[in-house]
């Protein structure tokens, strides 16, 4: 093994080596000539030992009984029979060998091989006699090093910064931001326009677009010169809105890895039937502005707090219990709970300590198992009305360390207690049951330097799109302090002083000049602060998935304002108006739609969401029934007597509905040209394609359908004559996803009409089920204008089928599936299932299915030009981004 030495090292060494030889051969204590050698040790060897070795081979730990912080331990140390430092044959030194990273030997340090230059230093140091000045013990330095985390900013309790320079009417928040900007000769940007402010606030606080009335009020306030007062009122009004909890609750659901299912389980039921109760608890707690310390405490130990007999309050513990089940492996379930508590509430990564002491943070394995003991002493009671809660075991578990994380390798016992780094040196172990309540109290404490800071940083992150601390769930020693530590300290202390009120904190931020400034580009600031970490302007933010979907529902007038309740599968129920926070989250089959839109994975605590821009997002927006149905609804809402002859007026209404503003003259011109071109084209083409739902008359003489009309109304998934059934005109005539009901005469047949989109060959099959003995059943006929009745089937308390094999249709040609009542209307509810398989050439192109394809909205055929314009506005960057 030869090591190429850097030139500087070599020249520096000649004298040292000479000195060393002198030392060795004269066997005299080193004298003045050794000064260089001492310098060499101090300069090159001592820092290396401290940096790379002492953590495991120093005063606190002596792995493999080797200690490298004291002179004698090094110079006389042995591994078996081998000397650590062999002055006679330096290359036989065990120390050198392990540093060389030989493949078949121990490799030290484990973090990675030393640089060649560093290796050269060690080799030359040993060759030159391993000079180690007696005065230079590393022990003290190593001890200081092991305690260095105590200096880490996040572990030091926040101190109130000097507020004496804050002007009386100045928000201290602005004072700290401006002071930093001033140090770079920058200033805040001008205030955003009132319009921008209104949208920004509504989307930040409620996750919804602003009401038109709010925008109008803001404009009026500008005219009256009362804008400032109006803003205060508006802020308070939104903070008091019950929709506030729906927006901010979703953030907490990311933190708590919320899901409605357990993840992979083999045979047992995979549902968490009560998961929604936890969500509801979160929403209500945030709406009620429950103090954040209590908010945390209840999630850990609601069973030991006031209201412990109330299932609604116990649901708070879903925070702990709604994780993955890991095939019911207890150790993994507890690990998941330790993770969601430490990262979610404290901003510390403790789960590394399951196998070894945390590499960087002051979290030894003993701390991990101290917490492990707390959760191992908490059981989920079986057969209870509330399935989310934990209770303390009658006799708590006395935890032991599992060495290298292996339960089969138990080590020493540890008491159940809080993290040592966050406890007083003489803090007692937990003694109250499992210790969960004591753990909750220690976390939700003013004396805890992390809890408040972590919360404030997250609120800041949601309001500014970027945290003051970049890693919101890791405040460990490797995390840089916030760019503006005084700001974070100030906000944290005032947050705790205000009874941990999240709403007060949010109010303080959104009333600031900093938050209300414009997001326009600042070329001057970019040069100094390209990432805008000093906040010389507001960040433009993209709506997250919840924000986008809820906004679409809101502008379509479809938003269901109900707060709380069970989950709904928004990926299959595309017509639901429920807000996205109520979307069912299936952990094991996490919908690709959610992945596509960066919704937090429910696998584990999510510190923050990724933000990607992928074409699958655009595909959803361009092609999904959800977006097109909403666009259709928006366009229909703008259709009126006034706009029928005035397309410009309708364009204005559309812009106002979707973008909440008037179009510019250019935009009117562009939109008009677009609509006109589309309408011309649609007139030239074949009209609607796919399924339509209506009623009409069966002309028995000519065997054709006459007077087909689409149903005018859709209610609860049923196409029908009007709001109520039976309808005055159409009676019980109706169609739904899986069937329907014919009317009482042959002029009120229930008709599904399918229109071919291209010239093709099709196979048609229609199954009709009439499930009752009463009445005389129903008749189904497959009819085309050209060929009349091609097949028919009559079902009465039976299942029947009508089919047409391979026949050619032209684009635009209709096929009607006509159901009539025969002679009696009574007991005529039927089910039907139609399959149309299309072939182009010999290739099966696709299949239409009456049930899968069913769209429960009126006018679900080809999108009208107006609906397409509405959709276009829904897709704009303006709709998706908030200035």
């Amino acid at each position: 093994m030869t090591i190429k030495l850097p030139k500087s090292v070599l020249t520096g060494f000649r004298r040292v080596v000479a000195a060393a030889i002198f030392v060795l051969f004269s066997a005299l204590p080193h004298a003045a000539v050794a000064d260089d050698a001492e310098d060499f040790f101090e300069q090159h060897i001592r820092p290396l030992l401290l940096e790379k070795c002492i953590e495991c081979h120093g005063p606190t730990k002596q792995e493999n009984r080797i200690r490298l912080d004291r002179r004698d331990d090094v110079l006389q140390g042995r591994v078996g029979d081998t000397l650590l430092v062999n002055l006679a044959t330096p290359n036989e030194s065990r120390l050198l060998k392990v540093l060389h990273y030989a493949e078949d030997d121990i490799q030290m340090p484990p973090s990675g091989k030393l640089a060649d230059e560093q290796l050269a230093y060690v080799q030359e140091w040993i060759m030159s006699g391993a000079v180690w000045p007696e005065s230079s013990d590393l022990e003290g330095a190593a001890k200081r090093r092991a305690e260095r985390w105590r200096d880490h900013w996040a572990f030091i309790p926040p101190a109130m910064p000097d507020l004496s320079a804050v002007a009386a009417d100045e928000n201290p928040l602005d004072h700290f931001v401006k002071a930093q900007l001033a140090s770079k000769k920058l200033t805040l940007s001008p205030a955003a326009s009132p319009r921008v402010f209104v949208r920004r606030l509504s989307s930040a606080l409620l996750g919804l677009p602003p009401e038109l009335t709010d925008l109008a009020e803001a404009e009026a306030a500008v005219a009256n010169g009362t804008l400032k007062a109006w803003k205060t009122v508006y802020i308070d009004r939104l903070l008091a809105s019950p929709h506030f909890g729906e927006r901010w609750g979703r953030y907490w659901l990311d933190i708590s890895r919320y899901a409605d299912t357990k993840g992979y389980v083999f045979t047992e039921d995979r549902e968490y039937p009560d998961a929604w109760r936890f969500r509801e608890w979160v929403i209500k707690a945030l709406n009620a502005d429950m103090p954040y310390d209590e908010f945390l405490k209840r999630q850990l130990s609601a069973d030991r707090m006031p209201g412990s007999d109330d299932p609604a309050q116990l649901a708070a513990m879903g925070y702990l219990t709604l994780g993955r089940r890991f095939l019911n492996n207890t150790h993994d379930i507890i690990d998941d709970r330790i993770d969601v508590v430490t990262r979610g509430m404290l901003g510390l990564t403790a789960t590394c300590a399951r196998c070894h002491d945390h590499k960087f943070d002051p979290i030894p394995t003993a701390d991990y198992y101290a917490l492990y003991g707390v959760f191992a002493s908490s059981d989920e009671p079986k057969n209870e009305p509330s399935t989310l809660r934990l209770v303390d075991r009658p006799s708590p578990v006395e935890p032991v360390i599992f060495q290298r994380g292996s339960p089969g390798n138990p080590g020493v016992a540890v008491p159940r207690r809080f993290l040592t780094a966050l406890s007083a040196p003489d803090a007692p172990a937990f003694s109250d049951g499992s210790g969960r309540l004591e753990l909750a109290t220690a976390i939700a404490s003013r004396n805890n330097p992390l809890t408040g800071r972590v919360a404030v940083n997250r609120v800041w992150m949601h309001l500014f799109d970027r945290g003051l601390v970049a890693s919101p769930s890791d405040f460990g020693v490797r995390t840089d302090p916030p760019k503006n530590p005084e700001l974070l300290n100030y906000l944290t202390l005032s947050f705790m002083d205000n009874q941990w009120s999240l709403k007060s904190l949010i109010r303080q931020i959104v009333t600031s000049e900093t938050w209300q400034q414009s997001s326009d580009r600042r070329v001057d600031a970019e040069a100094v602060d390209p990432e805008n970490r000093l906040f010389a302007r507001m960040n433009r933010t993209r709506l997250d998935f919840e924000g986008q979907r809820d906004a679409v529902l809101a502008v379509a007038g479809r938003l269901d304002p109900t707060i709380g309740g069970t989950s709904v599968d928004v990926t299959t129920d595309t017509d639901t108006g429920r807000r996205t926070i109520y979307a069912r989250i299936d952990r094991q089959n996490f919908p690709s739609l959610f992945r596509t839109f960066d919704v937090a994975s429910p696998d584990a605590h999510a510190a923050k969401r990724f933000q990607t821009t992928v074409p699958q997002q655009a595909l959803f927006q361009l092609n999904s029934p959800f977006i097109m149905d909403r666009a259709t609804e928006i366009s229909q809402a703008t259709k009126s007597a006034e706009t029928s002859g005035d397309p410009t007026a309708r364009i204005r209404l559309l812009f106002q509905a979707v973008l909440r503003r008037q179009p510019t003259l250019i935009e009117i011109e562009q939109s008009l040209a677009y609509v006109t071109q589309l309408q011309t084209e649609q007139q030239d083409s074949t009209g609607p394609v796919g399924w339509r739902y209506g009623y009409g008359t069966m002309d028995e003489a000519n065997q054709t359908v006459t007077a087909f009309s689409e149903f005018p109304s859709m209610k609860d998934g049923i196409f029908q004559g009007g709001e109520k059934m039976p309808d005055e005109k159409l009676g019980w005539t109706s169609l739904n996803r899986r069937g329907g009901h014919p009317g009482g005469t042959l002029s009120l047949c229930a008709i599904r009409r399918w229109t071919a989109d291209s010239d093709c060959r099709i196979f048609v099959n229609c199954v009709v089920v009439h499930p009752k003995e009463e009445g005389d059943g129903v008749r189904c006929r497959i009819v085309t204008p050209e060929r009349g009745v091609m097949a028919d089937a009559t079902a009465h308390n039976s299942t029947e089928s009508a089919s047409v094999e391979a026949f050619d249709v032209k684009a635009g040609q209709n096929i009607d599936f006509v159901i009539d009542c025969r002679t009696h209307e009574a007991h005529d509810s039927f089910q039907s299932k139609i399959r149309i398989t299309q072939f182009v050439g010999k290739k099966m192109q696709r299949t239409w299915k009456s049930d899968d394809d069913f769209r429960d909205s009126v006018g679900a055929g080809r999108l009208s030009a107006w609906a397409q314009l509405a959709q276009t506005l829904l897709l704009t960057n303006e709709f998706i981004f908030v200035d």
Partner: protein
Amino acid sequence: MNPSMPEPDTSPIAIGRRGMLTRCGMGFGSMALAGMLNADAAESALGAESPNPMLPKPAQFPSKIKHVIHLFMNGGPSQVDTFDPKPELQRRGGQTISDGNLTTERPTGALFPSPYRFHRYGQSGIEVSELFPHVAQHVDDMAIIRSMHADVPNHEPSLLLMNCGEARLVRPSLGSWLTYGLGTENQNLPAFVAMCPGGYPIQESQNWQSGFLPGVYQGTYVDTKHTDIEKLIENIRNDRITPQDQSLQLGLLQTLNRQHLAERPGDSQLESRIHSFELAFRMQSQATDAFDISHEPKHIRELYGDGVQARQILIARRLIERGVRFVQVWHGEGQPWDNHDDIEVNHRRLAKQCDQAIGALLTDLKQRGLLEETLVIWGGEFGRTPVVELPQKGANAGKINGRDHNHWGFTMWMAGGGVRGGYVHGATDEFGFRAVENKVHVHDLHATIMKLVGYDHEKFTYRYAGRDFRLTDVHGKVVEELIA
């Protein structure tokens, strides 16, 4: 609705904005986003503001391999019946192993000889069983690892270990790591596609999860049971707006977006969203085409044969040909190769379903010059015992003609760019139970795959929850002998 979308340069948008589309061809972003393609690309691709995290990026060091096809024989194929002949097993069938059987999932009994014959193939003369006559034609391009081993004899942890390098905790899959590192060469298709006909394998979507990596790197699952493109890729078609209408719509959308952008200069998020709509529009025609094997000439379809395996393996080739980075092809829903009983009949049936298509894939890739740049991996999550499984109450229906799970030793093979062909690595004991010679743990396989693709597995890391993670965690050693 209409399967043939208008050609890009005749569509109304393109006519209006030829310049834009020129930039957005296959090399999308090559001008607008040139900054992304430098050495910092991997880093910046993770930033919140990154325009498109999927842009192609170089590996750590040069590699010929651009694509990976992982043929996953889920359930665990038996090594002694496929690629690991054991004369001693044949000779001593019915005897018990003197020092006892290794512990597996269920009780096992005497040595159970393979019902299949082995033959020598190729110049290398490597022996392969009669189950894989088509694959066997390619032994000279294959490196067969007969000394694989894993940790436990259970499906769930072994699947996760094979896919994600960790048996229990949520970690990114191999395909996610590679797409995170390399991006993809076709922005009109998903970078990482996981195909499995009929539903999910055991452990479901966790097999292609992105774990703590951004969600965009997860595998896109495609149920190849379907032949219908709309089922294969959600929202790929639109019944209610014609392509002609949609191109007009996109024209207006981008006009409005550009006016919006003009007042907000320098915001790359706005630009990247504008671009994503262009991509989506093109993907509608590209994806339809990529998954439609009827575009293949007859002789190619005949080469692959009939059935769903043939179809999905041929789709795999069409995908990598179009630049998709990682394609995982699962044999089927659940755990088809898990033959605890009737192994003779079942293994024969399963092999027959895929042998011709896998052989065809290797032939086809080679003919097209794609084998050089594609790594093909074959194997299950573990192998099976050379001893017979004993019947248990509630299982096996009293049959004594199957094999139990075996993580102690099993076979996998690789072929393609950079792989040492005609080579057998390692060996199991005389019966094929435990890997004994040149053992290759799953972590070692991962380390080797990483090396083949251009990564030092120890240096390919992602910072999460306070530490740097890697696919091989703290394990893994590159098996240099497998590399040509």
